């Protein structure tokens, strides 16, 4: 029976790695993938707590997080395709039209 702490620390590490990905990568698709990584780290936390508290609410929450992540990935990718058609690049640095 693995202690709860181990799972929480693991998901914190994966979350931090996801944050690194969002901050430093200059490719929109990799940024979106890092966001998915962060969502999965949170899912792991939910499931670990669900098991340790004996409540199904954690697993139901993960179910909904997965549905929302699917919707978000779909919309995000559609936006990326539209942006690529306009500016022919996936570098967020080049999308600064609103910067003052």
């Amino acid at each position: 029976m693995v202690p709860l702490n181990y799972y929480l620390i693991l998901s914190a590490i994966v979350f931090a790695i996801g944050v690194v990905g969002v901050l430093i990568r200059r490719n929109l698709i990799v940024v979106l993938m890092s966001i998915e990584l962060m969502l999965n780290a949170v899912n792991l936390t939910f499931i670990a707590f669900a098991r340790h508290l004996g409540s199904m609410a954690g697993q139901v929450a993960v179910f909904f997080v997965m549905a929302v992540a699917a919707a978000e990935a779909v919309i995000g990718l559609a936006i990326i395709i539209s942006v690529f058609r306009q500016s022919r690049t996936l570098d967020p640095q080049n999308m600064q039209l609103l910067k003052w």
Partner: protein
Amino acid sequence: MNAATAIFFVLAGLLVIASLMVVFLRRVVHCAIALVTALLLIAILFISLQAPMVGVLQVMVYAGAIMVLFLFVIMFLNPGALEQPSIAWWGLAVILSGLLGAFLVPLLSHYEASDNPVTSTELFGSPDVLAKSLFGEFVLPFEIASVLLLVAIIGAVVLGKREHGSDGAA
């Protein structure tokens, strides 16, 4: 250290390596494959945490459908040029994320692992119990989630349509 803990450490190590590969590999397709690996490892962790239904849903939905969508978009857009890393920004970002990790880890270590967690029956996490929760207590979020998915489908179709007069890609 019993077998369960050893297996957990192996899986955790592989998961951290896969996450690092997602963030630090140069070619986008390799990052996508690394993310698929990470998702599969997380699904194995789910199954070991007595959530078989959610684990297999993770494989079916996340690793099996969402990541295929990512791969399709990567193949269509075909980002050729590799991006130029900027050392200063990378260093700053890694330091900030290290701080975030260093902040979160002690915070989360305070949880006393209760020696006997609430005894879960064999049915915990099985499709029956999950379905009862979903259609009993959480039926309203369930319906809202289905509307959300419908909205997402419509939005994606509208966003993906080609405008008249643009020299669309792919």
